[in-house]
């Protein structure tokens, strides 16, 4: 961590105070990255980047609360920081007083955090050539998997190194570094004139934790191949299984509806239901910002509060919201350490590492136990209304008859009400799969409308 970056944060805070701010906080997000895509035998692109953004929030006290404003810039010269701080305070004075606005009341994180596994020192020197080789190996393995893999959108490898410095006028100044490495392969399969695309990817904090490139390529090819011959099905009501990837999107929606902002604004169908049984007793969901090596792990949140473990859902009962200090004040509660923050934004709420606890049955056992239904492997579109819970999305997947997969499915929608879907979960898999900050095992919803031909 460069001293200059900590100095820039300290300078912005001091200048904001001098300009009349009663409180302030600042975030500096910096990073460099490598990214490449290989398609067939050829390199498609190589991108190298360096970025650094400083964001400042100034708060000015009035009789009924704080006025606030946020600014950001990538110009870190001393004159630019001074100008920015002055502008931020001036902008804050133009806004309305808000009794809930302000920094957290205290309880900031330790500034010398434990090792949370956010990267490996030896990865810092990774070369673009090494990542090109990873992408080539995935691409070659996908194409070698089957003669019907005839084309691809390419295989992409990226390594991203970030530094975050956060400081506020109450004296907190903390920083951490993290890395993210990824490898994605997206092949096309063709048979009888029809084409299908699918992908597979691996993402981790350490290069050594990435899935082997050839395995990524083979798996991607298998996923594209199994979609060949996909067709629609007649409109019906059946059990719908969500594989771990699509099930994680359901959990992401749940997190959105449990966000303190959605709750105090009543734009969530869960508003007012803390403590109630809102889901199947098979469902427990946990958010843990300190999970070692997790993609959502960080020592402190976007307001300098320590991250921690929160149980959102305990055997179907809604036990916690996700809160930063603003939404917590609006609800008369305390922050859960879930403030998300980019350099250019006010704090908001985000899950850290959020998962559904695995159940007792394998995906194969759940399929075998389904007489007739749809296993969803891809969802498209944004058909979810968090206010009412109404849910309707485009889907692709695999059709199940008598406990066996019989053919791939496309051009259907699945629809229901999200609140009812959560209550209707009647099977939870053992196959919890981490491919992002939000993870789930296979879930089966007892009944949904599948619209097709």
């Amino acid at each position, binding site marked *: 961590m460069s001293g200059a970056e900590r100095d820039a944060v300290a300078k912005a805070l001091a200048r904001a105070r001098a300009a009349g701010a009663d409180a302030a906080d600042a975030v500096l997000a910096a990073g460099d990255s490598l990214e490449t895509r290989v398609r067939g035998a050829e390199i498609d692109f*190589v991108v190298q980047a360096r970025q650094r953004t400083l964001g400042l929030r100034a708060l000015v006290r009035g009789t009924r609360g704080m006025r606030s404003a946020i600014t*950001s810039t990538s110009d870190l010269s001393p004159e630019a920081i001074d100008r920015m701080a002055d502008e931020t305070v001036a902008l804050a004075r133009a806004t309305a007083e808000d009794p809930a606005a302000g920094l957290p009341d205290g309880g900031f994180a330790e500034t010398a955090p434990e090792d949370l596994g956010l990267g490996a020192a030896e990865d810092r020197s990774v070369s673009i050539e090494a990542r090109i080789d990873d992408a080539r190996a995935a691409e070659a393995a996908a194409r070698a998997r089957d003669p019907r893999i005839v084309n691809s959108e390419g295989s992409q490898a990226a390594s991203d190194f970030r530094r975050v410095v956060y400081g506020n006028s109450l004296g907190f100044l903390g920083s951490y570094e993290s890395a993210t490495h990824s490898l994605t392969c997206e092949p096309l399969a063709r048979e009888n004139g029809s084409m299908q695309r699918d992908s597979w990817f691996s993402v981790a904090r350490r290069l050594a934790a990435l899935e082997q490139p050839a395995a990524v390529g083979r798996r991607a090819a298998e996923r594209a191949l199994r979609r060949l011959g996909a067709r629609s099905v007649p409109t019906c009501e059946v059990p719908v299984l969500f594989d771990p990837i699509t099930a994680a999107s359901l959990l992401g929606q749940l997190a959105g509806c449990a966000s303190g902002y959605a709750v105090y604004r009543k734009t969530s169908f869960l508003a007012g239901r803390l403590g109630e049984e809102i889901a199947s007793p098979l469902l427990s969901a946990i958010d843990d910002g300190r999970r070692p090596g997790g993609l959502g792990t960080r020592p402190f949140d976007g307001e300098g509060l320590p991250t921690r473990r929160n149980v959102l859902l305990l055997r179907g009962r809604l036990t916690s919201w996700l809160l930063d200090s603003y939404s917590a004040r609006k609800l008369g509660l305390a922050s859960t350490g879930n403030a998300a923050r980019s350099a250019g934004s006010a704090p908001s709420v985000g899950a850290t590492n959020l998962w559904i606890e695995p159940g007792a049955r394998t995906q194969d056992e759940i399929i075998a136990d389904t007489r007739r239904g749809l296993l969803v492997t891809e969802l498209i579109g944004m058909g979810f209304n968090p206010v009412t819970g109404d849910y309707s999305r*485009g889907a692709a997947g695999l059709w199940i008859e008598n406990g066996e997969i019989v053919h791939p499915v496309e051009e259907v929608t699945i629809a229901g009400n999200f609140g009812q879907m959560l209550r209707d979960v009647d099977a939870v898999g053992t196959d919890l799969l981490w491919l992002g900050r939000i993870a789930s095992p296979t879930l089966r919803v007892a009944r949904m409308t599948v619209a097709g031909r």
Partner: protein
Amino acid sequence: MSEPRSPTFFRERFGVDEQSLARVLDGALERKVDYADLYFEYATQDSVALEEGIVKSGDRHVEQGVGVRAQAGERQGYAHTDEIDLESLRLATASARAIAQHAAQGSARAALPRRTDAGPDLYPIVSSPTDVPVARKIDLLGAIDARARARDPRIVQVMASCVAEHRRVLVVGSDGTFAGDERPLVRLNVQVMAEGPGGRREIAYQGMGGRYDFAQLEEPSAWHPLVDEAVRIACLNLDSVPCPAGAMTVVLGPGWPGILLHEAVGHGLEGDFNRKKTSAFADRLGQRVAADGVTVIDDGTIPARRGSLNIDDEGTPTQRTVLIENGVLRGYLQDRLNARLMGMSPTGNGRRESYAHLPMPRMTNTFMLAGEDDPEEILRGVDRGLYAVSFGGGQVDITSGKFVFSANEAYRIENGRLGAPVKGATLIGNGPDVLLRVTRIGNDLRLDRGVGTCGKDGQSVPVGVGLPTLRIEELTVGGTEG
């Protein structure tokens, strides 16, 4: 734009003049490279947002940076940095050209910069929208809040925001391209929540914007209808019933439902997917892909539109491109790289989110030309179906051709009459054949209000769409009622 101010801006602010830029480009061309370019950007953005009756916070952002690109064959090397100075440029250039070291061809040398001639400025403004005093923006949001609450006592919550942007770009290419642009962009968003008997709540969103002066948004004739429409839809949806499920006749209203074209055919006609032959439309130029009478256009030259540009992000002037003419596929959307590799001409569709991204073929304003049918007669002719007027987002799988878009104001049609409003539902179809099932085209082409944002490969760019009233047979509607 006859005399772009951008070059002067970047020279004065960052000390990058035409001669030194030509030398930087020569550096990029040291190895065997077909083409190299520099993309400078300096953008200011501000926004204010209202909720619970007050503007709690304002924000303002400055984004600056430069990207250096080298192309050799199908390869591209790209390096970008947020430090705009000659030393950073030289380092970025070395990274970008490294990609070309094994290239088999290419022998370009930087041409002397020459100003690109473009037509008249499509978005002249009196004052930059980011220079408008914040108090005026706060006043507008306050007036919106008051009007929405006064329209209907069932409105229990109003969220409104206005976003202003001023983006300066400069493109310098090794073929002598030297083109600048100043791009204003404003946007107003209104979301209201209505609460009905029994505590049922519904929200509705409406927005508008474009490349014009902020003062245009302040006109009551602009924002009153926007607020009234949001209030109307939220209250209407308090009475909505479950949507039908299954394949049926769908009538799309004019304007924003043009998102159908964007998803069903627009993405599939982008040059990159067709060069790589990963699109369901690959190798289909000259073939019938839509019913008689269907003509689809992408036009980046409509004055003041959100999707319009004087030049694209590679310095190519934008144009009007016919994609489908009377049902027959006529053209693709091209950037420089894909046009060169396909032996076609660039169409001014090389766009990027910012200097931190590589350009790709992207849409601008995509719409269908009007037909001759009377919209009311189109509705009267439907025995049973769905009339969808307002939509949220959409998405497409360009390889299988399957696309979705989500209705948020829709009605059942029964015996030629509008029935009850239905809950939001996703519609799904197959891009290469959905337009073959168009049976009526209205005479009422309308463009959207200027709210579209298109995402591709993680990059967002502003776009527009447009559509006349359209009747389509056998589109799958994703409701819950069998």
